[in-house]
């Protein structure tokens, strides 16, 4: 169905699995079995590993029937800690009630597989691996039961954590079989069979997150909750404008503050992803170090600091022409289409702001640096991160401490959305621990977290399009005016040649102009897609109006025949899948029905993260401009659903998050300073503003792909188009509160 090797290769940016060795097996005390990754270089003879407690474990079956499945992927609310083990449990024929999921106790991709997450690709990249793991275990239990029951293996069936002899009804539990199962030969990968979808007992069901109990009882394993013996609490103060260097600070005065144990001026290396100049403070509790900051008087040299001005960026963007400096995509003859007397042509400028990640758990890390006078320094980290392997690389490069001397405890993340992919908060914690000689929990204030974010970049897109006399869109041009921190264009500014709808258009051009803006930017839930969908799919609605066409009919006609535009490439749109979700949402939303005055439906489709998603929003706007989003219908094709509860939740959340951002969120900067540094100036959608959401999944037979991001991009254009339907006013600027509306 898809060429997985190619995809893996193209996803190296997310931190790729090193080539898997082979499955490994070991016995457990008490007669259990363990099955896990092989480490290349170990002997193939599993007897060399029997009894090794450090075996690369993925699945353990204990003599009492308890099944432990390790989850190696970082969990940030996307549900991967539940969904990947569900796949293993399904294929091995386990009863989910017997399964306990444990976070992998360390970061070592050679043992635990890919331990970074991003791009909504974790599920896709692990699907076959998890199935292989489960099917291998199932085969070994079947082989063990064949011996125990003295019957042919072909007469046996694995189900509900037991093997049943179908002719006699006799059975053995996995617990009873574990000791014998682990002595069975490992089946070859080629011999494995996977279950048919109609036989699934676990996949597709609604299963509550494996950490639900810990979350509702307040003992959840978040990084910020880390407690280590002898631990100090720390903070790190940087220049108000990113990039400033520290000239001097009244360190002695800071050290005299109540609860402060020590404080230092720390020189950075000027890399915002590693370590900037700052004042580090450690103390007896978080409050004391936060409070000591008020006594800090620091002098900063802002010669090389950001001078960014949002207002100047606006003025720059508005002065740009339809075509930018750098042509990224050019196909057909756009200019001929725009100058043809038979075509109607419009152009508009779309604007979208910088956004904060606003993970509710502020940035934090606990580090324990142990210097050694003779030999290797040791480092232990309690770390909420999307990318532990990259932290290991930086620690090696910066401190010369190799992977074997770094112990990383992967902590549940209180949201991430792409934020916890940098390392500077880790390095700050390490520096404080190294200086104090004790474990230090570094906590950023909310203000730190908003001031020193890697923001979703703001930007502008000049849209231009032509429709012909038959009401078809014949040409499209997009000119992105984006940002270039330090002079290098951000890759999330766009435009991306692979993006929808470029690949489906005959005459199309996309170009880029950037302005140097030094405020750091980074991936924010569905990067690029979250701005491109707004500009391109709101403008699409404008083209439909220009053509006098229903936007859904026009989109279906643009899709044309059912085809995979680049066959077997999951990053390429499949128009058949697109048509199916569009037809689905058209039906579920009652598209075309009559609505009261000042109430409207808006439609948007987008393809990203291998997901085809169509959404319809129902909005009303009162005379004062108050917008109410009543309901959103979503139709989604990400292949078979693993966890129906988790999948539905991700789509609901993406829609609410998308509306939250669209409604009133905007980060601006002047003189290099972020102007919104806490929630009093950066509103989050509240429960009374949340729409009803109805999700329909088209469970096609393609390999399953992830849902952390793709539900978000279509929301903003769907709402913008609904506002137009309700009021006749176009929304070409986010947030809505900047476009003359209230939410």
């Amino acid at each position, binding site marked *: 169905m898809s060429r997985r090797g190619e995809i893996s290769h193209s996803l190296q940016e997310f931190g790729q699995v090193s080539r898997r060795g082979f499955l490994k097996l070991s016995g457990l005390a008490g007669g259990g079995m363990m099955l896990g990754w092989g480490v290349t270089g170990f002997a193939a003879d599993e007897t060399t590993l029997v009894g090794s407690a450090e075996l690369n474990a993925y699945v353990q079956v204990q003599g009492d029937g308890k099944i432990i499945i390790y989850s190696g992927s970082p969990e940030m609310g996307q549900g991967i800690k539940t969904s990947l083990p569900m796949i293993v449990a399904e294929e091995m024929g386990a009863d989910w009630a017997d399964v306990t999921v444990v976070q992998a106790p360390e970061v070592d991709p050679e043992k635990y597989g890919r331990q970074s997450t991003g791009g909504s690709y974790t599920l896709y990249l692990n699907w076959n691996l998890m199935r292989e793991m489960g099917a291998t275990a199932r085969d070994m239990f079947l082989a063990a039961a064949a011996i125990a029951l003295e019957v042919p293996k072909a007469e046996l069936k694995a189900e509900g954590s037991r093997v049943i002899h179908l002719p006699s009804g006799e059975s053995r539990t996995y617990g009873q079989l574990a000791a014998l199962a682990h002595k069975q030969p490992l089946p070859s990968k080629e011999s494995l069979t996977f279950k048919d979808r109609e036989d699934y007992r676990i996949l597709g069901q609604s*299963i509550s997150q494996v950490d639900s109990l810990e979350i509702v009882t307040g003992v959840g394993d978040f990084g910020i909750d880390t407690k280590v013996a002898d631990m100090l609490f720390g903070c790190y103060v940087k220049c108000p404008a990113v990039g400033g260097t520290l000239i001097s600070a009244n360190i002695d005065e800071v050290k005299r503050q109540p609860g402060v144990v020590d404080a230092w001026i720390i020189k950075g290396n000027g890399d915002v992803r590693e370590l900037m100049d700052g004042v580090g403070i450690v103390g007896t509790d978080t409050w004391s170090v936060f409070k000591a900051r008020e006594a800090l008087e620091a002098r900063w040299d802002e010669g090389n600091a950001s001078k960014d001005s949002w207002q100047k960026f606006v003025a720059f963007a508005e002065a740009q022409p339809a075509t930018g400096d750098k042509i990224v995509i050019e196909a057909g003859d756009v200019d001929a289409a725009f100058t043809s007397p038979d075509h109607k042509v419009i152009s508009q400028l779309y604007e979208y702001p910088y956004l904060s990640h606003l993970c509710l758990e502020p940035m934090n890390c606990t580090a324990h640096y142990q210097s050694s006078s003779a030999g290797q320094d040791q480092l232990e980290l309690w770390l909420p991160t999307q990318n532990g392997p990259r932290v290991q690389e930086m620690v090696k490069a910066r401190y010369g401490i190799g992977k074997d001397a770094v112990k990383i405890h992967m902590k549940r993340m209180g949201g991430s959305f792409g934020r916890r992919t940098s390392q500077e908060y880790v390095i700050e914690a390490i520096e404080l621990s190294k200086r104090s000689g004790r474990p230090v929990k570094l906590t950023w204030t909310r203000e730190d977290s908003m001031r020193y974010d890697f923001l979703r970049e703001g930007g502008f897109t000049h849209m231009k399009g032509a429709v012909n006399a038959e009401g078809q869109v014949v040409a499209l041009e997009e000119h992105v005016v984006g940002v270039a921190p330090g002079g290098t264009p951000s890759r999330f500014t766009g435009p991306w040649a692979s993006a929808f709808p470029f690949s489906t258009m005959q005459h199309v051009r996309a170009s880029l102009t950037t302005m140097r803006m030094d405020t750091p930017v980074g991936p924010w839930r569905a990067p690029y897609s979250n701005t491109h969908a707004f500009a391109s799919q709101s403008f699409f609605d404008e083209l439909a109006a220009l053509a006098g066409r229903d936007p859904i009919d026009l989109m279906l006609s643009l899709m044309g025949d059912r085809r995979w535009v680049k066959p077997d490439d999951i990053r390429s749109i499949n128009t058949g899948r697109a048509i199916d979700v569009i037809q689905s949402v058209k039906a579920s939303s009652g598209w075309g029905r009559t609505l009261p005055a000042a109430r409207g439906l808006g439609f948007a489709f987008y393809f990203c993260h291998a997901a085809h998603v169509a959404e319809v929003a129902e909005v009303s706007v009162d005379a004062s401009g108050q917008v109410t989003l009543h309901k959103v219908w979503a139709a989604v094709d990400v292949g078979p659903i693993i966890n129906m509860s988790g999948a539905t939740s991700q789509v609901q959340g993406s829609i609410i998050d998308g509306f939250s951002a669209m409604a009133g969120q905007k980060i601006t900067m002047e003189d290099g300073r972020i102007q919104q540094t806490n929630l009093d100036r950066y509103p989050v959608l509240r429960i009374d503003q949340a729409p009803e959401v109805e999700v329909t999944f088209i469970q096609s037979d393609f390999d399953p792909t992830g849902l952390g991001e793709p539900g978000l991009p279509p929301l903003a254009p769907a709402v913008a188009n609904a506002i137009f339907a309700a009021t006749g006013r176009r929304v070409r600027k986010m947030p809505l509160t900047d476009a003359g509306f209230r939410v």
Partner: protein
Amino acid sequence: MPDYQLNINNKSVSVSAPADMPLLWVLRDLVGLTGTKYGCGIGQCGACTVRLAGAPVRSCSLPVSAAEGAKIATIEGLAKDGALSTLQAVWIEEDVAQCGYCQAGQLMSASALLEQNVNPTDADIDQAMSGNYCRCGTYIRIRKAIHTAAAKVREGDQA
């Protein structure tokens, strides 16, 4: 530094802390109850919600000196004698959480609501819960879980 006798989850706890130290940091760093979360520090997000004399309060903005003498209830005390409260059990059944960080605050606000009103309308829920942000957007399930838990409480379950 002054000493305070606090009643936390029906246990007497003594702490030495500056008078202006917010209850949030007393709970988290001095007492070791980290279920109550730091989100914004200015009483906007509700992640730090605890109950003081029954009422939901933002512990990030409540000095410890103002918390002495009143019963303080935190998420760690919501389960009684090892049994989950109805709200907690429903929260698990309905799979409410995504990242989970705000949920302690959500549950404390919801528990205060149910204690006052076992038959809340959507408007009642909006009013009681609108001080608790969820960046992940779990509001739909929070609303449903409160309705479900309220129905169970009306049938005799303990809130």
